[in-house]
């Protein structure tokens, strides 16, 4: 189908879609703990978790392919540490909701934090290394030695 918009219209459509789709994404993410709080049944949020996972993997692969990290941070030790802590805190909070009041609560959230932190930290570090390499490869492709 032939595009009938000019570059300004296309740019404005991108901006509208950008805001709208990120809003949908974060609302979907927020709906996960809210539904857990309301229903306390992890199986109820399976669909939302799958959708968030698919979109997140797509974003990660796209960023890696183009050698991009983000708008406001660079892949440093501080960023990886922050990624690890944030993921562990958020993940542990989500895990804690359906377990609230149960005997295994403390052990479970402690275990969750201990597992999530190194996994998230290692993933962030690995992505940082891969993205830096990819960025160099892409820069070399258009490099002019003269």
């Amino acid at each position, binding site marked *: 189908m032939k595009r009938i918009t*000019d570059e*300004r*219209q296309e740019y404005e459509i991108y901006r509208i879609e950008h805001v709208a789709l990120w809003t949908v994404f974060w609302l979907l993410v927020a709906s996960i703990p809210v539904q857990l709080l309301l229903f306390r049944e992890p199986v109820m949020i399976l669909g939302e978790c799958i959708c968030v996972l698919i979109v997140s993997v797509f974003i990660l692969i796209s960023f890696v392919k183009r050698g991009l990290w983000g708008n406001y941070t660079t892949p440093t030790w501080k960023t990886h540490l922050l990624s690890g802590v944030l993921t562990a805190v958020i993940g542990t909070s989500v895990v804690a909701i359906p377990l609230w009041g149960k005997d295994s609560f403390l052990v479970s959230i402690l275990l969750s934090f201990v597992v999530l932190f190194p996994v998230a930290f290692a993933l962030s570090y690995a992505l940082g290394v891969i993205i830096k390499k990819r960025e160099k490869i892409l820069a070399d492709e258009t490099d002019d030695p003269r």
Partner: protein
Amino acid sequence: MKNMQLKVARIQNDLSQEQLAQRVGVTRQTIGLIEAGKFNPSIHLCISICKALNRTLNDIFWEEKDDETNHG
């Protein structure tokens, strides 16, 4: 910042915003926003506009700074 060079060149070529828009394949609103300094066109669109108005990129899109004008 308003692009007065574009507006002047368009009027000198006796073209309305609509006519210029048709020549370069964009909407009238896009030409209006470029003249008003509210949209930065791509280099391809800049070249199309310059060709349609028989002007160079410098004529239409180069912004002279005060200090450059004073020392140039």
